[in-house]
């Protein structure tokens, strides 16, 4: 029996590869929604293999352990594109074949997506890391000031989003430090507020656990949250809200890029073009894992008024003006930030 089954196993594993063309994509969880991927698969008769990862370091580590050609496209924090390019992980994209003219101007992010005049990635989605809350359980006015979080009033009712860059960026804003000025010298100034925030909070958790905790009432506030956290839940729990406090908020943005060494450059480009097309953008904006603003303004025509309201489509100019990009730490600062974060988790 084992030999026969082994043959069956070998056949089974071999079939998908020969039957149709495949595209291997290293992505974040919002890309795993079938409503986003299936139209592309049908139109091009390909199978898109998706592998999720969290954080740029993990993504680059996966690429380090792979051979050229293993991966075709990847999703990456826009602010980390330079890091990936320096490591030689990304391939150049033909800038003239990307619809960046239709984008929100602030989201073209040429300084991030372009290195030495060559385009390596294109922004696909963005949003804010600020403060999400249940407006029936906290005073919305308090949420306009970050200091309220550690005032004692909300002890044990706060959840922290488990990603060090946005949360430490927010804390920097709370201290009056610009995210761009976050480095080895300014970092220690965050230690006290990080410790204080952790003391006031109940849990530190990933995207979905944060959503769950807010939806089930385990926490009333999520620091680092934003539309990406509350939009998915808006239908079930209209009491969830988010705001950018007076100290400001962080703007996240993710880019999509072609992985260096891909043997399917054409297909990879077509996939990227699909993702930044109005159709792809509308699906990505309302993906089941988390929502976010599409970078391409033309996606607006395909979004329902309700979806636009949830995403705060009309307030974008104001929000973009009041938010700063993620910190871009150098390797040493990054390691230090991660260590501070681990220490905070285990406080």
């Amino acid at each position, binding site marked *: 029996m084992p030999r026969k089954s082994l043959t069956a196993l070998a056949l089974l594993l071999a079939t998908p590869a020969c039957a149709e063309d495949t595209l291997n994509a290293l992505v974040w969880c919002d890309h795993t929604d079938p409503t986003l991927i299936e139209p592309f698969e049908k139109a091009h008769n390909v199978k898109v293999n998706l592998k999720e*990862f969290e954080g740029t370091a993990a993504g680059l580590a996966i690429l380090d352990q792979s051979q050229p050609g293993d991966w075709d496209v990847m999703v990456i924090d826009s602010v980390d594109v330079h890091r990936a390019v320096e490591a030689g992980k990304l391939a150049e994209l033909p800038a003239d074949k990307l619809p960046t003219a239709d984008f929100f101007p602030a989201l073209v992010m040429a300084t991030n997506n372009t290195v030495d005049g060559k385009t390596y990635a294109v922004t696909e989605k963005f949003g804010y890391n600020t403060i999400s809350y249940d407006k029936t359980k906290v005073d919305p006015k308090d949420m306009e000031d970050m200091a309220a979080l550690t005032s004692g009033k909300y002890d044990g009712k706060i959840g922290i989003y488990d990603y060090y860059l946005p949360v430490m960026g927010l804390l920097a804003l709370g201290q009056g430090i610009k995210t761009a000025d976050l480095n080895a010298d300014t970092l220690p100034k965050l230690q006290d507020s990080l410790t204080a925030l952790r003391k006031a909070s109940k849990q530190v958790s990933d995207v979905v656990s944060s959503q769950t905790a807010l939806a089930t009432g*385990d926490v009333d506030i999520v620091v680092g949250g934003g539309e990406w956290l509350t939009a998915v839940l808006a239908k079930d729990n209209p009491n969830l809200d988010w705001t950018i406090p007076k100290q400001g908020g962080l703007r996240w943005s993710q880019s999509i890029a072609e992985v260096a060494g891909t043997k399917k450059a054409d297909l990879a480009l077509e996939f990227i073009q699909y993702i930044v097309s109005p159709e792809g953008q509308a699906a990505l904006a309302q993906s089941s894992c988390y929502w976010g603003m599409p970078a391409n303004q033309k996606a607006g025509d395909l979004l329902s008024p309700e979806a636009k309201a949830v995403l705060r489509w009309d307030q974008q100019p104001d929000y973009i003006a009041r938010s700063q990009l993620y910190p871009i730490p150098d390797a040493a600062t990054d390691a230090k930030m991660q260590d501070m974060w681990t220490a905070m988790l285990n406080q």
Partner: protein
Amino acid sequence: MSIASAERKLGWGLLAPALLWTAAFFVVPFLAMLALSFAHMEGRAIVSGFDPGNYIRAFTDWSQLKALINSVEITVTVTVISVVLAWPLAAIIAWQVPARFQRLALLMAVLPFWTSYVVRSYSWLLVLGKNGVINKALMGIGVISEPLALASTRTATVIGFVHFFVMLLTLTIYANLIQLSPNYARAAQDLGASRWATFVHVILPLTLPGVITGAFVTFVLCIGDYITPQILGGNTELTLPQLIMLQMGRSGNFPMASALSVVLMGVVTVAYAACSRWLRLDRL
């Protein structure tokens, strides 16, 4: 060729597949990991060499050491609670339940074993949450007015673990109890021992091998588990496996993850040495 040497040849031949498999996919990987644990990171690059830095960090950096302490604390708590809860359960099934229902009673006691492992922790999340079944029920009957903070705590992790291991230990202790001849107890009582003395000095020691074996398995499985603390603990503290996954998954620091794994193995070895006297792993 003598019969003995032909036999020996055959013996080696039969052993070879298992030995080679274990060598190739267990011993070699472990050595590779051990070697990697002495490497270090320069930026994103792994630089191999003989650098004990990762181990020094594991024991001197509080955020790393704390994970080890948390893991040991949780594991010991879980093991003790599970044994204390499972022993009477096994005893009642072995001694009080009529013989022809015993198998059924035992099967029922371990039935939830067959829920999927990931799902099991998840369902405890639903039970223990702020709006979960327990809080709703207790508030419904007026025992508490404010929901208990059960989810995302160490208590939740411990409850999730104990649930699993009570089932496991009930099995191993039951297996041990059922082999005990009632004559021992009768003899002790005939010699004038009280019921309590019989229990403490005769029955308990006789079940020790089963208890210790079960407890050791509990210890090994519990201290190496990632899912239960990850789902139920809410990242309010880290256990060693969570830290290992963080070092690997988020930072891509394979050398540190390897070193922490070796430390984890060290702890298990210490536990093994502590109870090796009573262990009968090959008789599980």
